[in-house]
């Protein structure tokens, strides 16, 4: 394959951009390791999901539209978040239905991939260099039901010889983040976080990893408030740390 065809866009997501940039950097490095040439358009910001899930579709569209002009070349768009990848892939076509950018939005949706999915399909080989560690993998609802890419994450992790990957009880259940839900129904959100934290801690894992920074932000904040010491990491950071 030529260098040209190995180029990929990275959509870093707004949460990772401002709160967990290490995860975005790890994604870029992993893509390089997989033989790609990642491009990070500086004009990107957010997929529009926060407003979309709050009912403010016009605002969501305005922000999504700005991304369309940042990712114009016909390259795959790789997103280190199942939730944002799912937003683009599954909801942009409807968000732009009847708008002048509909075709463009559909095309972009069709070439958007969640990071683990993309790396897994690309056949990235991971050589584990880390100490043995037990991690709990929290599958976000987006990875499970929007992008359906939980298996990709698991396949990548099983390549790591020193990593024991543990699934919490009620693994299929939402952690209670839900974007603005975390604020609008804060008590409920916290109760759901508590159920999830209890289940995660019960695995005996030394670290918590996930494909979504949103869940991690919420769980990390709750764990800290509860006084539980369970370090959290985005899966990209974790993978990169193991092989770097």
């Amino acid at each position, binding site marked *: 394959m030529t260098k040209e065809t190995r180029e990929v866009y*990275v959509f*870093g997501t*707004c949460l990772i951009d*401002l*709160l*967990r*940039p*290490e995860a*975005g*950097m790890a994604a*870029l490095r992993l893509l390089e390791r997989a033989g790609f040439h*990642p*491009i*990070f*358009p*500086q*004009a*990107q*910001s*957010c997929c529009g999901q926060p*407003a979309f*899930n*709050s*009912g*403010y*579709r*016009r*605002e969501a569209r*305005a922000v999504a*539209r*700005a991304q369309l002009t*940042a990712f114009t*070349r016909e390259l795959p768009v790789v997103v280190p978040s199942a939730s944002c990848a799912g937003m683009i892939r599954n909801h942009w076509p409807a968000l732009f239905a009847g708008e002048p950018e509909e075709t463009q939005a559909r095309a972009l949706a069709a070439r958007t991939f969640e990071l683990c999915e993309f790396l897994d399909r690309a056949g990235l080989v991971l050589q584990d260099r880390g100490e043995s560690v037990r991690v709990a993998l929290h599958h976000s*609802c987006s990875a499970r*039901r*929007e992008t359906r890419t939980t298996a990709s994450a698991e396949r990548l992790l099983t390549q790591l010889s020193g990593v024991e990957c543990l699934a919490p009880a009620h693994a*299929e*259940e*939402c952690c209670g*983040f*839900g974007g603005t*839900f975390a*604020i*609008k*129904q*804060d008590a*409920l*959100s*916290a*109760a*759901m*976080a508590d*159920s999830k934290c209890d289940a995660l801690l019960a695995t005996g894992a030394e670290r918590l990893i996930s494909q979504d920074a949103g869940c991690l*932000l*919420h769980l*990390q*904040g*709750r764990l*800290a*408030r509860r006084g539980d010491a369970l370090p959290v990491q985005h899966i990209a950071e974790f993978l990169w740390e193991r092989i770097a």
Partner: protein
Amino acid sequence: MNVPGPMTALRARVREALGKAPVRRNFRAAMDGIRAKRADALPDATDFAQRRARTAAIRARALARLPELLERLEQRLEANGIRVHWAEDAAQANAIVLDLLRQAGARSVIKGKSMVSEEIGLNDVLGEAGIAVVESDLGEYIVQLAGEPPSHIVAPAIHKNRHEVATLFQAHHPQREATEDIEGLTAEARQVLRARFAQADAGISGVNFLVAETGTLVLVENEGNGRLSTSAPPLHIAITGIEKVIERLDELPPLLDLLTRSATGQPITTYVNFISGPRRADELDGPREVHLVLLDNGRARIHADPLFADTLRCIRCGACINHCPVYVQVGGHAYGSVYPGPIGALLEPQRLGLEAGGSLTSACTLCGACGDVCPVAIPLPGLINQLRAEGVEPRTDSPLPDAGRLRHRGEALLWRLWAAIYAHPRRYRWLARLLTALRRLAPRRLGAWTRWREAPRPAARDLHRLAREAGFSDE
């Protein structure tokens, strides 16, 4: 006013429910049990996807021809000797039932399970008219004794544990020996109810499916109470929503199969009742009169709305409720609506209007669990999210009551501001620079977020900057 009343009330009910720790543990275990049964009954996702494509198509076909099928249904039912009554709203439906009971001189009624009767508040109306109503479904009987509404559409007393039921029974059946085991409690209810069946002047029931081509009312249940309620008393009044109709009898088996597997994990219920008319001249039992009350109560309006008409495909299996991570935390009463859980969050705002029901859409993380298990493939999360949009930025021709009424100036302004920054790369870069530069000044308190969680702190350098500095190209 910034916060609407229903939202505040919902949050208060949620907090109250969350405060009941022991009840929550029991409840969680019960819900896990139901989920496990459904999983065992539908183990293969591909197989389920194929089956539900068929059931969804059957329901969609029926809804596409709703007026025609209802007309046919009425003809067939009347030919079978079942009298049909149309009710536009709850008041009309209640009046029809009351009228029928009065004409028959009925003083006591035995009832099978019916969520539609809950929807119209029938028990209260009959009670006020001096007609004694006894619920014959065990779960309904329990909540009736407790003076509570059902907390689940299939398992009305799922929020009560064995001890609570025992206490309740002791208070209401003082002549009987106290027991706490489930067998004993069930037997007790059965014996108390037997006497009621024999005495009842009329039976009232719900309906699961209406078959247009044969004029049949189909009712599934596990306790035999439905059969007794509909056959022992001389008068049977069935009540249901107009959306329950299907065209043909051969469409029924796939629907029943997925209904019971989704609801309770059973391949079939203990009783499947086909009611096709009153007692005939040569028959020894069965009611002398059978009536069907067909309720609209907003359904025709929902049916006419292309965006939300799929809501009416619902066969009330309760699977969405059972798999809802919110419901499992707080139970059905916290919703404060007749229909709880995801189907409630979808149906109630449409039925009651967004002003009264719209807050229910906030009790949802859009996790998607409900949409995955729905046996008629209703895209619940997508529609619930769409309802949020109708609350704040409605379609110009939105037929939803109170469309746009959930828009509040402060919130709308925040989103506009957000868009004004995030839709403009330069402004967004400025914001990022500002937040990263001032990260040490980031507030440790962030309203509702930090009521329960520690505040995140912006990174020292954002990803845009890190990527650029590391030499990743821009285009």
